[in-house]
């Protein structure tokens, strides 16, 4: 299994097509090829963080600054960012558009990812965060655009879960 080169490119193009010019991220395997593209694009600003909660602050700052911004993280990073999501974004009605690599779910071979994978959906529901699963490369650009649009109109976090179907391939 390897990370899909083609679908990483499609996700990147979806981010660009949604008008997003700024990304905060904590690198992880599934996001690696995508982050390389973002980093080498002169029209995009990439801010790598040391922990995902920091990215909630960066995203809020980008929003206040008027810059279309997207957060990239693994689901365990989402779990690590919860206080910032609740006590900054939701408390102040600051929109967040999150793309979350859904590790530890269907087909996961690595035991260490599994607890986080199993609870991610319930935690999103508990936090009233609207989410969708991205499985189909033909639809993912639209899902990114619509997730961003909903975050801005609702002034609330939204999450698009990047699944194994989308991010991995069998050579």
């Amino acid at each position: 299994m390897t990370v899909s080169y083609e679908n990483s490119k499609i996700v990147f193009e979806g981010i660009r097509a949604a008008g997003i010019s700024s990304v905060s991220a904590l690198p992880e395997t599934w996001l690696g090829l995508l982050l390389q593209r973002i980093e080498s694009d002169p029209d995009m600003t990439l801010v790598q963080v040391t922990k995902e909660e920091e990215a909630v602050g960066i995203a809020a700052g980008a929003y206040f600054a008027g810059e279309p911004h997207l957060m990239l993280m693994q689901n365990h990073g989402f779990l690590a960012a919860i206080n910032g999501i609740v006590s900054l974004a939701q408390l102040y009605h600051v929109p967040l558009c999150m793309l979350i690599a859904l590790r530890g779910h269907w087909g996961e071979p690595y035991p260490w990812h599994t607890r986080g994978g199993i609870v991610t959906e319930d935690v999103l529901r508990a936090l009233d965060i609207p989410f969708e699963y991205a499985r189909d490369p033909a639809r993912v650009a639209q899902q990114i655009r619509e997730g961003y649009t909903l975050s801005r109109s609702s002034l609330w976090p939204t999450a698009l879960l990047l699944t194994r179907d989308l991010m991995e391939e069998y050579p």
Partner: protein
Amino acid sequence: MERRQCIELIYDELEEKVVVTIMGACAQELYDLGHRENFFYLQHAMGLASSIGIGIALHRPEEKVVVLDGDGSVLMNLGTFATMARYAPTNLVHVVFDNGSLLSTGGFDSHTTSGITDLAGIARASGIEHVADADDLMTFGEAMVEAFEREGPSVVVARVKAVGPDNYGMDLHLPENAFRFARHLSDRRSNR
């Protein structure tokens, strides 16, 4: 030296800046001097004020951004110094009021009490070039003048007494503060 005196000293200078404060005493002392539309008070999410400052500073290089932080808050997000050093927004001034106390949440000692942990040292070792340490008002004032003038980022650690205001309260709802702050920053850009 008290934090209130430090904030009073720079209050006039803050009129043209973009200001983000942490919760509790620090927010209240700034608010009590007179709210302005360019002030955002982060009343929760401890640690993230400096991240908001970095986010604004990187995307609005024409603005000078000032973060009023505290030892308890910055200890919750020490990675912020590394992020600040890596992306080095030249327009960011990060003030850390170190009172060695979690004053707003009960007055427990923080990890900086008795000088055990050196926040200025952590900032320097994270790779931030301009870091000042101030124990008195004169030194703080000079450090702030330099920080406002130079191409930063700058960190100013101000050792202050663990005292705060007698009364807390703002005539400003939290989302209202966020909406007006975002609107103000947008208007500033269109008026340039």
